[in-house]
């Protein structure tokens, strides 16, 4: 299963997948093992894909072409194995639409030359009308993995990939237009796609180098191409290649996933090295983002994680980070501790809810997988179509959001409450937003209270209020200096800062809790009254509303900090303000991550309800 899973997982693979098929078709002599395919796929995931602006690409491309003889990509290499050779450098792939499963693949590949000599420098242009993630059935059947592969494809969330592929324009287009999470979402995406693309290019370069130097056309052991430092490993690889470093067939999924993962790791490592020469920027991207991107988008890896007993789960990582922070803090004054977001977030049970939600999400995911295995091909197709439809709602939210941006101002006091209530009602689950509302109100109240001296509508007239408030601050300043505590009306800067962080942590924890409750209610076994797709849409809106609210809150907090601290030095004030904004972003990330965890929950709920319908 790893194979397809990976495919779909890694973001750029639409086309790479195609390559695989092609290679198979094109009478590759090697049909020997699935394994190869599997690994190949993983390579593919790293193959460059063109869509959108990616700065690092430039460097790399230049670099690699500079290297002279090059082979483009592994699959190709494989396809032409017999021909013994290499195609060339710049690969331009133009994509139309990529869909998870379109039955036909149309691909016009123009290869200008390909001879044994790998000197060509001609661009390979691949034009894809429609790219399929899924190989034609026949082929899959050959590999014997068809069912598994197909399933994993449909199941896995592949946010980056899907969105980048399907909405290439969005990333580059108007990322900044969206407010709130829309903005963050697209920002994240473009970052991811950039990182992925970077890796892809780097990898190509490496592969090219490796293959060129090795004069190796044997694609049976794709891994060889990935190994670090091609030159250095030349010998080793050559031998490895001969011996066929073929890992055990993926009859056991775990093995498959790990194999894949390791090849990805290799790919990443080698990519990193090559790119080093290309530019530090690229390296940084890769270092920081690549693993995350790959891990996130790679179902195989995800499974491995599950198999490894979730030791690497998000909540656990957060917990560990928090523990470390706590340790560090425990050596400081107690006063300073209270402002640490992570600790507070845990204190409000945010981590616990996140952990519980993760458990539900993982279990749902494996239930979905095991259900799909039992289906016949036809059933599978239908089912997949539905599951994918749900998935798309999860990953295409930004598009909708952009159009919805015309809604009332975010954060208008009662707006959020009524919107949330309304959305929860729409969801047809018995969730109530009481706790979240309470936390949110508390947050708004204190910040408003911080401006209490001013008869104001804090929300609308920030500017005015700011000035007045500042004066007030100054007048009471002396007083505060002596006894920070007994001033109710105006708070010290530090207190405001702490309250800001605490409020953000609390509101965020409540948002996570809310999403967790929704998951529990969706799963609790009653007949779902609303189709999962509709629920997905509503959930997407709920998440959006939450993110908006959080971002509004953090903005509000930082505004009041700024005004309250206008008499302080910048070096005192700025870090506080920045931290508040940063924690705001942090909060949004938590919420969005939690939202993504709901996908398998909705999918299994959909499966269950359609089963019960079928029975009736």
């Amino acid at each position, binding site marked *: 299963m790893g194979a397809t899973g990976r495919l779909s997982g890694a973001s750029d693979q639409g086309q790479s997948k195609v390559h695989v098929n092609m290679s198979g078709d094109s009478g590759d002599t090697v049909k020997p093992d699935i394994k190869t395919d599997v690994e190949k796929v993983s390579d593919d995931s790293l193959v460059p894909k063109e869509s959108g602006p990616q700065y690092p690409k430039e460097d790399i491309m230049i670099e690699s072409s500079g290297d002279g003889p090059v082979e483009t990509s592994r699959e190709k290499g494989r396809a032409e194995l017999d021909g013994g050779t290499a195609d060339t450098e710049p690969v331009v792939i133009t994509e139309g639409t990529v869909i998870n499963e379109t039955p036909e693949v149309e691909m016009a590949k123009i290869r200008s030359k390909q001879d044994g000599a790998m000197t060509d420098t001609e661009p390979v242009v691949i034009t894809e009308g429609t790219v399929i993630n899924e190989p034609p059935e026949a082929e899959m059947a050959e590999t014997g993995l068809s069912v598994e592969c197909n399933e994993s494809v449909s199941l896995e969330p592949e946010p980056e990939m899907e969105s980048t592929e399907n909405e290439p324009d969005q990333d580059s287009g108007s990322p900044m237009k969206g407010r709130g999470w829309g903005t963050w979402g697209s920002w994240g995406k473009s970052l991811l796609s950039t990182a992925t693309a970077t890796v892809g290019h780097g990898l190509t370069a490496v592969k090219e180098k490796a293959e060129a130097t090795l004069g190796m056309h044997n694609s049976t052991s794709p891994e060889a191409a990935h190994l670090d430092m091609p030159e250095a490993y030349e010998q080793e690889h050559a031998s490895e290649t001969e011996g066929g470093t073929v890992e055990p067939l993926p009859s056991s999924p775990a093995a498959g996933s790990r194999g894949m993962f390791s090849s990805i790791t290799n790919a990443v490592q080698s990519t990193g090295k090559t790119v080093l020469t290309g530019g530090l920027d690229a390296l940084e991207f890769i270092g920081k983002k690549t693993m995350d991107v790959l891990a996130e988008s790679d179902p195989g890896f995800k499974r491995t994680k599950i198999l490894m*007993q*979730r*030791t690497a789960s998000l909540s656990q990582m957060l917990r560990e980070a928090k*523990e470390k922070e*706590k*340790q*560090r*803090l*425990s*050596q400081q*004054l*107690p*006063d*300073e*501790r*209270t*402002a640490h977001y992570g*600790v*507070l977030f845990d*204190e409000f*049970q945010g981590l*616990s*809810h996140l952990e*519980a939600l993760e*458990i*539900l999400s993982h*279990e749902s995911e494996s239930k979905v997988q095991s259900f799909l295995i039992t289906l016949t091909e036809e059933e599978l197709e239908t089912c997949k179509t539905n599951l994918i439809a749900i998935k798309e709602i999860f990953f295409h939210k930004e598009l909708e959001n952009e159009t919805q941006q015309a809604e009332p101002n975010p954060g208008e006091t009662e707006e959020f409450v009524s919107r949330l209530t309304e959305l929860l009602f729409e969801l047809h689950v*018995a*969730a109530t937003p009481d706790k979240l509302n309470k936390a949110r109100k508390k947050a708004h109240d204190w910040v408003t209270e911080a401006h209490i001296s001013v008869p104001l509508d804090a929300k609308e007239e920030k500017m005015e209020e700011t000035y007045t408030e500042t004066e007030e601050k100054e007048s009471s300043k002396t007083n*505060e*200096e*002596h*006894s*920070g*505590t007994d001033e109710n009306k105006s*708070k*010290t800067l*530090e*207190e405001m*800062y*702490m309250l800001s962080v*605490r409020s953000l942590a609390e509101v965020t924890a409540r948002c996570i809790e809310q999403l*967790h*409750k929704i998951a*529990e*209610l969706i*799963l*609790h*076994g*009653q007949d779902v009254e609303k189709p999962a797709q509709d629920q997905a849409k509503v959930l997407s809106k709920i998440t959006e509303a939450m993110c908006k609210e959080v971002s509004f809150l953090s903005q509000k907090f930082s505004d009041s900090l700024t005004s309250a601290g206008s008499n302080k030095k910048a070096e005192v004030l700025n*870090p*506080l303000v920045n931290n508040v904004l940063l924690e705001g972003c942090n909060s949004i990330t938590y919420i969005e991550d939690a939202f993504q965890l709901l996908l398998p929950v909705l999918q299994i709920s959909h499966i269950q309800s359609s089963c019960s319908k079928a029975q009736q």
Partner: protein
Amino acid sequence: MANANTGSLLNKHTSNATMATAPYNYSYIFKYIIIGDMGVGKSCLLHQFTEKKFMADCPHTIGVEFGTRIIEVSGQKIKLQIWDTAGQERFRAVTRSYYRGAAGALMVYDITRRSTYNHLSSWLTDARNLTNPNTVIILIGNKADLEAQRDVTYEEAKQFAEENGLLFLEASAKTGENVEDAFLEAAKKIYQNIQDGSLDLNAAESGVQHKPSAPQGGRLTSEPQPQREGCGC
């Protein structure tokens, strides 16, 4: 960031927080689950334990709720992370997901309602199947304050507990009687299992995380930290 002048303010906040200064230094985290029929008082027990208050009209729990408190066993600070599950049958599928990795389980029945006692074997089966063999299970007969309405005798419950190798206590979330002990007894047992090596902390399912306390700078605690197992980082 903390200026001298804000000290008192901050302290005030600190004390409001559930985590005051000292509790930062716990050495272990134990995961507990509370299970049992609807309405036996699971959430109330938790509330009494964490807040030291009786919650009169407690709403039905949806899925799971959480509570934490730091306790001390043999000089070691232990943080209990308590998963208070919903008792309603309809949530059973969901709550089963949460059993995994529990170090301790409080299995609660209502001494005034025999049916809740009769269902214990089903709860026990789940608990045994879904947790690890070392999970400490304590049987709790709640609402011990309602002696007049007693429907399950102490003796029979005690016997049931013994037959099944469970700890046993009757408690009252209302009066607070034995509530502390319920949580503490289980913790002691778990701690003892750690001490005698029967509970492997490195096992993913142990439900215990060892948190070697940070070097305190001599400020807060001076207890020797266990050096044995857990991550040595």
